[in-house]
């Protein structure tokens, strides 16, 4: 039964998987940041004796959050080729040719990620309409996102695999008739 499913390992990843992975990453990074800042706040109040809320540290928190998100996207991709969200959805960040993305370009990709959010997320449009399904930050960093389920084969669902197989069989016949 598994053999009748189409293998898509190494293919460019689409919008749904990438968006879902991005949400998972935002959730994980957000939770870790909140827990981390709460722990730091507790330590400041109980041990150092500094009341963070009274000192209006909102800007510092925002800066710390931005740095944290940058580090999250940079380090995870540089070390493992994927963020936790991408690992869950079976995605991997590679170079445009399919090679391993160098650490510096991982940093560029993480730094340019906010640019894709500009103009109502226009930078993500490339994932849907682009030939290589790359977002703006992928274009800037020279990266691409592919399906990679690790030791297992990335597969399409059975009905779509069957549809594509039928279509592939019909195309040569239609070309001959035309």
């Amino acid at each position, binding site marked *: 039964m598994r053999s009748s499913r189409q293998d898509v390992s190494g293919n*460019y990843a689409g*919008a749904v998987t990438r968006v879902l992975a991005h949400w998972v990453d935002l959730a994980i990074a957000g939770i870790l940041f909140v827990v981390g800042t709460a722990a730091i706040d507790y330590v400041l109040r109980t041990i150092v004796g500094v009341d963070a809320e009274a000192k209006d540290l909102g800007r510092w928190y925002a800066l710390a959050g931005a740095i944290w998100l940058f580090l999250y996207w940079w380090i995870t991709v540089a070390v493992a080729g994927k963020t936790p969200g991408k690992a*869950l959805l079976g995605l991997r960040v*590679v170079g445009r*040719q*399919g090679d391993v993305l160098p650490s510096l370009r991982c940093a560029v990709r993480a730094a340019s990620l906010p640019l894709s959010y500009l103009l109502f997320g226009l930078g993500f449009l490339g994932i*849907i309409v682009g*030939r290589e399904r790359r977002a703006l930050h992928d274009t800037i960093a020279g990266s691409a996102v*592919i399906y990679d389920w690790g030791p297992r084969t990335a*597969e399409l669902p059975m009905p779509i695999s069957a549809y594509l197989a039928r279509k592939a069989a019909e195309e040569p016949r239609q070309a001959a008739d035309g």
Partner: protein
Amino acid sequence: MNQQDPLQGRLGKLANAIATLVVQTLDLPQLASEIDIAAIIHQIDVVEIMDQSDIDAILQQADMDALLDNVDVDRVIARVDANALLDRVDVNAMLDRVEVDALLNRVDVNTLLDRVDVERLLNRVDVNALIARVDLDAVLDRVPVDELAQRAGIPEIVSESTSHMAASFIDLLRRIAVGLDLVIYGTIQRLLRRQAADMPQGPPLLTVEDV
């Protein structure tokens, strides 16, 4: 030798004639009935006779088999009081003299076991009664369940099956997401009037194009 003593010849004939006459005259049964045999036997010293006899020589001449054939063994045994005999036996003293190890060394256990009818033996065993007498809690308390589970590899099996189920579930979600990816991408490409076959499937190093 041919010439006999003339006196002895005549006396002998006379003695024979007298003896014959006496025998004919005497009433021997009458005479025998008047003899007190019990008194005669009473006067015989049997012990002295036995002392003077060569018992071994007599026994050697005796036909023991014929003698034993005439003995009614069943009758002899019937007259033996076995309980009285056993009462006189000191069993402990007898057992003390038995060398058990030597005795056991002489026992061929395999032959003994071959003669045991195991089926018959088991049929006589009341298994339910036997099990009812077993304190299972006590038995189980002595069983190292954790160690047994470890040796049987149960944690690995549980871990493997759990991770396999989790991976299968994640793959299912991934397949749905990949399917939606393809549907959306195919729809967009159709709207843009692009041929799907012209679109690259993935990075050149990771995709093998059909020849």
